[in-house]
């Protein structure tokens, strides 16, 4: 999520072009973040200190962290903190931007802060840096603290866990109803009335079907929508569990899908959120009353 959304922000603000974005993606997916870069990005070392350690490392066969401790620049505790950040998406982004000579970690930090500010996400900047899917999902919803927030978070998180981790969300909106071909959805009843479903314009929905079934579908047909219905059932099952922790009980109805165009509406507006899964766009919709 972080890579795609921050990457798009950098394109929109003309900090990088499409070509650089693609190179960045390649590096981002393959690169291992160097400890020195994290230390500089975290302001634990100056660039000069990091360069000095790198120079020493080129001569003696020792780890970066050990040399930094010997020189008295870092403590063992600091080094372990840095190591924990090595897998971080933000750091991988810093590393990739630096490797391509586009910007140094300080500049990346400035840009990332501006990106977060634009998202109105300063309060959750650490979660955003940690590539927390829930935090991104919330910020792309049309209103704060909505009653469909938890459901949307579970949906996006489940897609990233089961279907693909190369996903990002786009700004969601509130709509009175959705009308489309090949909509799959499920209602829940009990302490709350819930609707959750999804559709896509092209065959993007097959990403969901294949993510659930783990085999391929040739086209958007009844069988594919059946698989989408089962995936929706998984999301709603998790949501029902989340509700049960707050003593709310809901029962899942049988998932409903149809190839023909149909309109789905609820007691109140539906939240409609686009999710891009490996360049294919799927629309999620939800209403909780």
């Amino acid at each position, binding site marked *: 999520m972080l890579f795609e959304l921050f990457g798009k922000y950098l394109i929109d603000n003309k900090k990088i072009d499409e070509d650089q974005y693609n190179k960045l993606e390649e590096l981002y997916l393959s690169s291992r973040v160097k400890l020195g870069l994290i230390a500089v990005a975290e302001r634990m070392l100056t660039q000069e200190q990091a360069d000095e350690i790198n120079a020493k490392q080129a001569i003696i066969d020792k780890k970066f962290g050990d040399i930094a401790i010997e020189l008295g620049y870092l403590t063992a505790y600091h080094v372990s903190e840095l190591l924990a950040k090595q897998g971080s998406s933000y750091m991988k982004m810093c590393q990739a931007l630096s490797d391509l000579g586009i910007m140094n970690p300080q500049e990346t930090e400035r840009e990332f802060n501006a990106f977060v500010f634009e998202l109105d996400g300063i309060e959750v900047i650490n979660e955003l840096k940690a590539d927390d899917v829930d935090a991104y999902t919330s910020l792309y919803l049309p209103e704060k603290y909505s009653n469909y927030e938890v459901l949307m978070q579970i949906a996006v998180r489940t897609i990233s866990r089961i279907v693909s981790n190369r996903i990002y969300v786009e700004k969601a909106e509130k709509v009175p109803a959705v009308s489309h071909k090949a909509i799959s959805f499920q209602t829940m009843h009990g302490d709350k009335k819930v609707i959750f479903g999804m559709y896509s314009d092209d065959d993007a929905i097959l990403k969901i079907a294949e993510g659930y079934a783990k085999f391929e579908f040739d086209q958007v047909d009844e069988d594919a929508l059946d698989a989408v219905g089962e995936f929706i059932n998984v999301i709603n099952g*998790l949501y029902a569990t989340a509700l*049960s922790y707050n003593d709310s009980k809901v029962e899942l109805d049988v998932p409903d899908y149809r190839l023909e165009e149909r309109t789905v509406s609820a007691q109140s507006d539906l939240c409609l959120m686009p999710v891009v899964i490996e360049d294919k766009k799927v629309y999620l919709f939800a209403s909780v009353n």
Partner: protein
Amino acid sequence: MAKVLIVDDSKTSRRILKNFLTQFGHEVIGEAENGEIGVEMYKNLKPDVVTLDITMPVMDGVEALGKIKEFDKDAKVVMVTAAGQRDHVMGAIKAGALEFVTKPFEENILKKVFEKICV
């Protein structure tokens, strides 16, 4: 090796389950798309194990479990649920289901459940 009856309204889920069970060396002797048909098939086929999806039209898995247990109190039943239908699962275990598995199916978990149930 067991003779298994799969009861699930989703064709995709039946296919996934059948693939796994066949892979493990079991034989799927029947498939039903709702609880009502499932109960009838159970009576006719007398499988070693029956898997019951919970969310199904016409007759859900919990009701079908009751009917199957009425007919055969020693029936070996595995409940299949979407993650999180805790209350139903607990109820089903009390009503005599031996095991439960959650969707999406995970090969290792499914394998263990069937190994346990088939001894």
